[in-house]
């Protein structure tokens, strides 16, 4: 291509009167002919109509055009269309350039047609100078391993594995414990239907017996390599090293309850944690009359600012169970705000109130005080403490991140948020994705989640993973970054700056390289490299500079 003479064709759109009614299109067409490398320039009534598109195709052939410019509306809406038109005529789509003379010219300068036309001339000239430097780029294809790895065998991980396996993908489920089930194993009943936790645990059998799922229990992750479509996870199981390959990874490592040790005179006997209460309820071994629960123990404070999402409902659930067992029992919940959003949960709260469970609000400035046989809770209305007797005091502890999440995050090269839960790519629109392609998160590893939320998220993570592993090949955009190894001094500044971890040091060649499959072409690394060693294809420094110079000098 490089030796071939540059032959630019420029198509200027009237867009009916949208552009033509303001800008002087004949003048623009004539002007364009005077620009370097332009061998063809013509106006169309509507370039994007079938007539206009076939004119592009025909003139590419007739005039041997090797660069095409359309001056019309916005590339944000029309570039894909014109690019594919070029491609149909055998021209590499990256040799197309678009100039916006409608949305950013004729429409916004309707009363200044001459000045608008001058602006359009500059814009077209800038486009012509950039076009001369455009390079044809190939969309690379990389193969994808059609299977997934799920890390963590709690309810979220098991469900994600099951969904993918039911879609006919092979799944490897890695669990560090000696059995599957996670936190669910310690629960008695689950809200909002108060079903036995053991019913939900049956998922274990489905998972272990599924022919598409390999379960690795008591397995420790040693190393994670690779990138989207081609990951390799090395695990240690029974002193054996096992290598597992997959196209996508789902993180479902859950969370754990904060230890109650040191809070409100915890003693493990008549002052216990909510999780311990679950155990006692399972054994059916509670026969006290005054049961009081305190919410938000160890969270929503300076050290742990967050609300752990699940504790209000858990307390309500156990309060209701206790009350059902023994309607005469006094059950009291001392709380800050009751988090029972939604339809079913609010309903549950109402039921609890109707059953006679007592709710007492406390302020963080005046926490309850534990006395020998009663608790003192400050009441603002009466401006004094009121006494609540108890035989059993239950502390609602928040879920906190696992200790090893930091280590796992490092291996996966994904970030954690300040409480050490995994940080998603975008809170709203990519809630189960990581910025790093091909890795997903669900359940309490992401944020304290209850069973239904965990399952919901695990389905979501499975769906996101399936969008990758269902493809035989991943197609990679051509406009990515590339490092010129001759100029690069290996300072690694770019490695840190890339928001997608697309850049790394290749251990074999000991050079810093961009993984095109991961790169999104934002160009931030290019603007940052101290050595100017990075080319941002399709937005190269030379191309941009050419536009600047011709605008300035023109």
């Amino acid at each position, binding site marked *: 291509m490089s030796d071939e003479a540059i032959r630019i064709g420029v198509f200027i759109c009237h867009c009916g009167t949208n552009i033509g009614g303001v800008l002087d299109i004949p003048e623009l067409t004539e002007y364009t002919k005077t620009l370097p490398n332009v061998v063809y320039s013509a106006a169309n009534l509507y370039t994007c109509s079938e007539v206009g598109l076939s004119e592009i195709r025909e003139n590419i052939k007739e005039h041997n055009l090797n660069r095409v410019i359309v001056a019309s509306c916005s590339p944000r809406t029309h570039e894909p269309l014109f690019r594919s038109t070029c491609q149909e005529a055998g021209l590499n789509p990256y040799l197309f350039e678009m100039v916006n003379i409608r949305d950013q010219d004729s429409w916004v300068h309707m009363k200044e047609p001459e000045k608008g036309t001058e602006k359009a001339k500059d814009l077209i000239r800038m486009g012509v100078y950039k076009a001369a430097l455009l390079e044809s780029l190939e969309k690379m294809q990389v193969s994808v391993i059609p299977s997934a790895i799920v890390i963590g065998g709690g309810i979220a991980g098991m469900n994600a594995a099951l969904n993918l396996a039911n879609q006919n993908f092979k799944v490897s489920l890695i669990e560090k414990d000696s059995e599957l089930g996670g936190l669910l194993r310690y629960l008695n009943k689950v809200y909002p239907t108060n079903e036995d936790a053991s019913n939900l645990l049956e998922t274990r059998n489905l998972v272990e017996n599924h022919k598409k799922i390999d379960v690795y229990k008591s397995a420790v992750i040693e190393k994670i390599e690779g990138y989207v479509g081609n990951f390799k996870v090395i695990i240690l199981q029974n002193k054996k090293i096992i290598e597992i390959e997959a196209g996508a990874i789902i993180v479902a490592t859950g969370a754990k309850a904060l230890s109650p040790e040191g809070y409100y005179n915890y003693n493990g006997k008549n002052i216990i944690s909510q999780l311990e209460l679950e155990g006692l309820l399972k054994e059916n071994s509670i026969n006290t009359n005054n049961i009081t629960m305190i919410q938000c123990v160890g969270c929503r404070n300076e050290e742990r600012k967050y609300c752990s999402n699940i504790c209000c409902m858990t307390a309500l659930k156990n309060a209701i169970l206790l009350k059902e067992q023994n309607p005469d029992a006094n059950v009291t919940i001392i709380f800050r705000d*009751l988090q029972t959003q*939604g339809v079913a949960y609010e309903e549950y709260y109402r039921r609890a109130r109707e059953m006679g469970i007592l709710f007492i609000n406390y302020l963080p400035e005046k926490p309850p005080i534990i006395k020998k046989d009663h608790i003192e809770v400050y009441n603002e209305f009466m401006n004094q403490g009121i006494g609540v007797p108890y035989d059993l005091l239950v502390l609602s502890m928040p879920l906190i991140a696992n200790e090893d999440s930091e280590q796992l995050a490092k291996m996966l090269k994904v970030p954690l948020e300040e409480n050490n839960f995994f940080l998603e790519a975008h809170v709203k629109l*990519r809630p189960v994705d990581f910025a790093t392609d091909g890795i997903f998160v669900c359940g309490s590893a992401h944020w304290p989640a209850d069973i239904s939320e965990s399952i919901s998220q695990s*389905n979501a993570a499975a769906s996101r993973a399936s969008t990758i592993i269902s493809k035989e090949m991943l197609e990679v955009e051509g406009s990515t970054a590339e490092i010129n190894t001759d100029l690069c001094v290996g300072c690694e500044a770019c490695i840190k700056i890339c928001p997608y971890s697309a850049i790394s040091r290749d251990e074999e060649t000991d050079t810093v390289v961009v993984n095109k499959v991961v790169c999104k072409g934002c160009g931030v690394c290019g603007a940052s490299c101290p050595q100017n060693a990075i080319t941002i294809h399709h937005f190269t420094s030379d191309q941009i500079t050419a536009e600047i110079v011709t605008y300035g000098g023109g």
Partner: protein
Amino acid sequence: MSKNLKRVMVIGGGIAGIQASLDLAERGIKVELIEKNACIGGRMAQLDKTFPTNDCSICILAPKLAECSRHPNITLHTLSEVKNLSGQPRNFNVKIFKKARYVKEDECINCGLCIEKCPMRVDDEFDMKLRKRRAIYIDYVQGVPSIMRIDRKNCLLFTKDACRICEKVCEREAIDFDQKDEELELNVGSIIVATGYDIFDPKTLGSLGYGRYPNVVTALEFERLICASGPLDGHLKRPSDKNDPKKLAFINCVGSRDIKNNPYCSSCCCMYTTKEAMIAYEHDNEIDTSIFYIDLRAAGKGFREYIQRGCDDYAIKYIKGKVAKILEDDQKNPLIVYEDITTSQVKQLKFDLVILATSMIPKKDAGNLAKILGIKINDFNFFKANSYQPQISSKEGIFLCGACREPMDIPSSVVDASGAAAKAAEIVMRG
């Protein structure tokens, strides 16, 4: 006809429907996306910014809209509704009713010439009737597909047999008054329902004065009032006198957690009133906001911290109080009468503008759609979901996501949507 159709129908093109469609399409499954309105985008397109990151709603939505309309695996059916369903999972037969657009989809280039000339002025539903639109229009400027439609209820040709001005000015000859409503039949293996929600009408709560007092508005109206591309170009004014409001009050749980109306919690209002207060403050640092609440529900990731920021950085006052009624003084300032929950005293406060966080309620036609599809609804008219696999409806092969099954925010809707896509894929891809 093959037994197992690798094709899924998604009903509703809000953020949930869009996300479900994109996931399936990327997964290699064909999608028929059915949208009642002329453009996809749903409620999210109406929002100014969105919690908890306060990023601009349309900025993050627009790329998804474009992707949806461009994706080779997605067929978009706008102005369409489901009329009938037969068959069984893996082989459903669906009848679709498609209203005439009276504008040729392939010809219209969204130039807007017709809008300029159309003589009709009609309340703009997208802008919560705070602005007028014409009888030929696009739901909202960034709407997708970006083409016009004619609203036959208001177009003079249909009402008075006169006009045809748009036809004359359209240089593309895109207007086609001869278009007819159509019926299509589609075959799909599975169905995802994502029809979203409506807003509770606070007029029925006479005590709050909505509809009588100009300076009492709903939260969704407020979203449009502060949006840079809304009817006021983002310069918040109070409706009665166009002055800059300085004292705002938000009332949470309007119609929600209320046995007489909607006993459930709408789950987003605590967060979005905080958001709206923050945005108002960013527009004008002199704005002083109070939020009246019963419980502050902020259990999502980073939500508690968000509320904290509202207190610390935006000077929002959270008042734990039950609002009894709203009165109005002679300057048209709303006066809120409320019971302070912590002290049980009745108090009164004056504001410039009051915003009601009205409940999210099921779509009016949810019951009807449920009947057509043969799925159950719950006590509140939301589609009934399985308690532990919340995307599963009462009927095999039909899945639910987003606010049509329970009020939920955008992050949850997106999770739900991907989840529903996975469940639908499970049905159509099962080996």
